[in-house]
């Protein structure tokens, strides 16, 4: 269980760690996250040297490789600004597993220091920015899938829904078994494709059954998985990263 975090006052600047999935497949979500932060008067620093948090290697058991990759990120955040990550899974890796990964090494203190500055985007927008949102979109019924890492590892099951509740025209509906995994799980989807497929099938059916025309999520792994399943079946339900959804309707 993540201990209750004491949130700092809104800072002048933050670092933004975009994550590799966003970098490669969903860069607009990353940019929309940056815009939301900038609109709150925060200067966003995007270290161009960033690549990946190392989680794929970590969860696959390749910890030497994961440590090397993580090491390459540790020096990117020299000032004491918070580090905002638009993903529950990557922020969980950096907050929880970096200290484990470097335990007993010369970088342990640095890993812990960086870990202490990691915030997931919706967490930061809600608890640090106290974000106010003026919804300019059409009335719409949507569902949200909170990633398992955001919900359990980071203890952030409510930040996304709370932000969405501030959108005047949005009706958030909850799908059955909302807390159940969508079946992505990184390399799990590749190593156990049939089990993963059964899981995403159930997830898409649950979302569809709510009558929502769209779903949002704070993790691009889940987005890729769930939206990919909807698209494969030619369903009209579209998925979007919550950063893009919030920015699109309030800008």
């Amino acid at each position: 269980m993540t201990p209750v975090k004491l949130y700092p006052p809104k800072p002048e600047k933050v670092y933004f760690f975009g994550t590799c999935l966003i970098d490669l497949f969903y860069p607009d979500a990353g940019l929309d996250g940056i815009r939301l932060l900038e609109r709150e008067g925060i200067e966003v620093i995007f270290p161009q040297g960033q690549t990946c948090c190392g989680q794929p290697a970590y969860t696959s058991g390749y910890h030497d490789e994961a440590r090397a990759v993580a090491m390459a990120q540790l020096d990117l955040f020299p000032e004491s600004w918070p580090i905002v990550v638009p993903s529950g899974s990557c922020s969980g890796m950096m907050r929880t597993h970096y200290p484990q990964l470097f335990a007993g090494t010369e970088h342990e203190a640095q890993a812990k220091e960086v870990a202490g500055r990691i915030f997931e985007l919706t967490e930061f927008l809600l608890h640090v920015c106290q974000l106010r949102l003026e919804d300019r979109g059409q009335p719409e019924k949507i569902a949200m899938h909170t990633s398992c890492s955001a919900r359990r590892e980071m203890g952030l099951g409510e930040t996304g829904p709370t932000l969405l509740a501030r959108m005047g025209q949005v009706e958030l509906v909850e799908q059955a078994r909302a807390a159940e995994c969508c079946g992505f799980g990184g390399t799990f989807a590749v190593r156990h494709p049939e089990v993963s497929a059964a899981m995403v099938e159930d997830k898409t059916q649950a979302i569809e059954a709510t009558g929502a025309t769209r779903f949002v999520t704070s993790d691009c792994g889940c987005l890729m998985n769930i939206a990919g399943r909807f698209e494969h079946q030619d369903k009209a339900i579209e998925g979007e990263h919550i950063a893009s959804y919030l920015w699109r309707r309030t800008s």
Partner: protein
Amino acid sequence: MSSARESVQTYTPREFHRQAHDALGNPQIRANFRRAMDGLMGKRRDVFSDWDLETLRELGASIRLRALAKLPDLLERLEANCQANGIQVHWAENGDEACRIIREICQRHDAKAVIKGKSMVSEEMHLNAHLEEAGIVALESDLGEYLVQLNEQTPSHIIMPAIHLNTDEISDIMHDKTGIERTRDVDYMTAAARAQLRERFMAADVGISGVNFAVAETGTLCLVENEGNGRMTTAVPPVHVAVTGIEKVVEHLRDVPPLYALLTRSATGQHVTTYFNMISSPRKPGEHDGPKEVHLVLVDSGRSNIYQDNELLDTLRCIRCGACMNHCPVYTRVGGHTYGTTYPGPIGSILMPHMMGLEETKDLPTASSLCGACGEVCPVKIPIPDLLVRLRRESVGEGRGNVPGAGVKRTRKEAAAWKGFQWLATHPTAWRSGAALAGKLRALAPSKLGPWTEYRTAPKPAKKSLHELVKRHQAEKAKREERP
């Protein structure tokens, strides 16, 4: 032959993928597990609603950790106190030794028929088959275990062994195997089983049970159950043999109530079970019932090896409630038999590699999306996802080598792929040009990405990476700010 009978087969962890494929393709199995797991999750949620669950879990974890911290001392105390109470204590390094000890006890009493209460440790060591070879019939008396045994299967869940079967299938099994009429009347089937088993209790020469908690302070064996078969097994036959793992010991009697509260609530969402049976000695002079001999067989089977390692040690906290499987999205989809091991689901995936080796069980630690539901509900706070990752490390040879079969999964190809990933992710310039290149070539991106695209559309790389979008965004911003 009914459908339930056709499902009779043996399962092995080596065949996890094939068994998962079969289970996923069986709508009956999928429906049975989904319904059962939904029900169990709901009941657990309700029963804990008015409890300070976190505080209770903290307490449960501290009790189990304290027991493990003092394990050798507590085992000595348990042994001494049991012996002082008249319980005979035996030690077995592995399942075969434990089977031999129990068989010899049976043979000393010229036993032909043994009645069994529920014991996963006896399943772990395949006791029934061993006794059968010696001409001793071992009959399961827990209703679920009895049904599974009639159907020549193994349990698919550690608490609810017959959870993979529905009423119609059970009716078929009871009809085929015991000759009762086919029925959907659960009370009728239960009464029939009661009648069949009561005769067997009376005729049994030896009763064999498991143990939920063994109390060092008093030399007491605690058994948790609803049916009463555990009480029958431990009180009707003249000899009682309790078999359990060496990790089941707790220090004090007062450690028991919190663990019992956590166990029943986590397992089946019950605030209490019908019976809590605490046995501290055989029948004493002047007493009129109960066994005249009580034996406790303590089995290691890899547990003392798990005990060596500070991280793996947490595996031994387990109180066998099954909540991790009830909440596991993978277990819910594929069912217990797919794992091919005595303990299925998340706890099995972190325990069985130590008992069977990683070569046999290499697909189990990866059979998890690491969603964390198991760790979240574990009543003694075992960090199951972390342990799954640890076993993945061990199987690719990047752990501490403390698990049998460590490194068995390492292939040159996969190791090279991760080295490649490492190189790219530690060379930002190459990473950026790689991302840019992927974007430019997105039209050429394969629409088939192996298994992913059998069920999902493959994502296409974006035209421009976030690195590029941010550069452009910052340039535009700078330009705007230059303007008056």
